[in-house]
């Protein structure tokens, strides 16, 4: 439970207690109805004006659905591929082939892990170069069989470790981005939690990019930014505001095409609902993308990314494209 969610959880607890009691004391039902109404109001108030930092906390919420949950929640069938055929298998990246209803997809996502052991095994969702190279393997399978690609972005970032650098993570990230800009199948990307810099972008280039309402995407973590900006990583909440990293900001900058609404309070409060919405969005988007000829699709993908950026062209005094 996050600090600002307390009033919601407390009220919910009270309602549940009353519900148990009401089995023997039906006169309590009226009170329950009253409190349920109040709960709606409290939720409204708590989740209406969230600060960027509160959104960061929801994006990192321990119960937030991860890539693995989306895959299990959406796919009828899924076969996971393992290893990069160079060095090893990086379990902070899940990749595989699957079916959603009757349509076949290649799916790649970063996975943070849930239990302490799993988190350690998955390196808290921070990929090594093998993760990106496995992703590239998956992209090649997609191209060979003409399967569209779905990616789920959820990582604090690339792993700052010795092995990751020894095996060229900068090169691996760049090559994965390069592979995606030219990939000859539709790519649909979902920012489902935390989009941490280059490690996120390495699987985040898409024809359509969606962000879940309470997800974030940033060039640097708020803590890292605060350490540089204020020489104090505890000022992360302030840094989060400055970085403009919420889904709403991303939409304004043209980084994402659409925001996917989450259940009130975040996806973790009703996972089935968010799976349904994401699944619908996948099918709807694929229907739209598959009609476009591949050359045209690649041209559009390129144009989309060439448009991103805000700069000045001083010769004629105009501000450049957005």
């Amino acid at each position, binding site marked *: 439970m996050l600090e600002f969610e307390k009033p919601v959880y407390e009220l919910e607890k009270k309602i549940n207690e009353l519900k148990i009691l009401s089995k023997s004391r039906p006169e309590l039902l009226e009170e329950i109805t009253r409190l349920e109404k109040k709960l709606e109001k409290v939720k409204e108030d708590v989740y209406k004006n969230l600060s960027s930092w509160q959104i960061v906390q929801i994006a990192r919420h321990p119960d937030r659905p991860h890539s693995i949950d989306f895959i299990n929640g959406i796919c009828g069938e899924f076969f996971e591929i393992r290893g990069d055929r160079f060095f090893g298998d990086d379990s902070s990246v899940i990749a595989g082939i699957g079916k959603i209803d009757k349509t076949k997809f290649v799916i790649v996502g970063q996975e943070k892990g849930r239990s302490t052991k799993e988190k350690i095994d998955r390196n808290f969702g921070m990929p090594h170069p093998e993760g990106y190279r496995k992703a590239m393997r998956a992209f090649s399978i997609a191209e060979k069989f003409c399967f569209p690609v779905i990616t789920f972005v959820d990582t604090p970032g690339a792993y700052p470790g010795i092995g990751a650098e020894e095996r060229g993570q900068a090169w691996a990230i*760049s090559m994965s981005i390069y592979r995606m800009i030219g990939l000859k199948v539709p790519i649909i990307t979902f920012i489902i939690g935390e989009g941490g810099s280059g490690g996120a972008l390495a699987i985040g280039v898409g024809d359509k990019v969606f962000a879940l309402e309470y997800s974030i995407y940033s060039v640097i973590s708020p803590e890292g930014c605060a350490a540089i900006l204020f020489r104090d990583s505890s000022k992360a909440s302030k840094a989060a505001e400055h970085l403009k990293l919420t889904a709403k900001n991303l939409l304004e900058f043209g980084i994402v095409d659409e925001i996917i609404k989450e259940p009130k309070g975040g996806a973790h409060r009703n996972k089935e609902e968010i799976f349904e919405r994401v699944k619908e969005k996948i099918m709807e988007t694929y229907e739209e993308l598959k009609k476009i000829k591949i050359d045209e699709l690649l041209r559009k993908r390129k144009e989309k990314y060439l448009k991103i950026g805000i700069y000045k*062209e001083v010769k004629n005094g105009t*501000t450049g494209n957005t």
Partner: protein
Amino acid sequence: MFFRKPFKPDKKEIKAEVWRKCDSCGETLHIAQLEKNLWVCPKCSFHFRIPAKKYIEYIFEKESFVELFNEIESDDPLNFPDYKKKLKKAKEKTGLKEACITGKGKIDKFTVCAFISDFSFIGGSMGSAYGEKFYRICEHAVSEKLPLISITSSGGGARMQEGILSLMQLVKTNLGVKLLEENKIPYITVLCDPTMGGVMASFAALGDISLAEKGALLGFAGPRVIEQTIRQKLPEGFQRAEFQLEHGMIDEVIDRRELKKKLIKILNILWD
């Protein structure tokens, strides 16, 4: 951040002080001697960081270099604290309008396009203007059928002050490299100290041929961040050019005094 304090051979400063200590061996060196030696220590061959303009002077034939796209400058899209001030200061300090110079000129008999970043301009970091300039010089190289040489030094990679827009320049610059590939335009990268983060993780990693200056720090995560994460000291030479050569990431470690010769040699085969 994690890099050494940049050296800025500003004209005034050169006049004011005639001597400089080598950052590596501590030898006291005469500025004129260093200049003649392309800012490489004659004793230990430590490579001082030099501004973009010096590379132009050292590589291109006299007065052959023409700057292009210098009308493109950074904006402040996030209204980020102190960014406008930082840009203003960087411009005054370097005499540049952005952290990179793009243009074309002659190296020996070859006319080539060049992209050269400058570490003394906000750490040579990549924002929207930087990314756009890289893409435009790629387009120019394609339309004029000229090879592209990229010389990079960037401490943090993507420029924090432009947030997510900076990160997206990794895609834009890679699109530039793709354009070169599709049109069979040679692309040579020269990686200088330091080339890190989003710059190394995009166009700087994709050269047909990739050279690196002696001792240059090359990689993704900065050494300090790694040390804080793994709570141990990094081995000597970690992420340096020699280390990256050993790990198969670059083609050759070069001495700056040989850079021009090397480029001519490569162009002689790729573009003759």
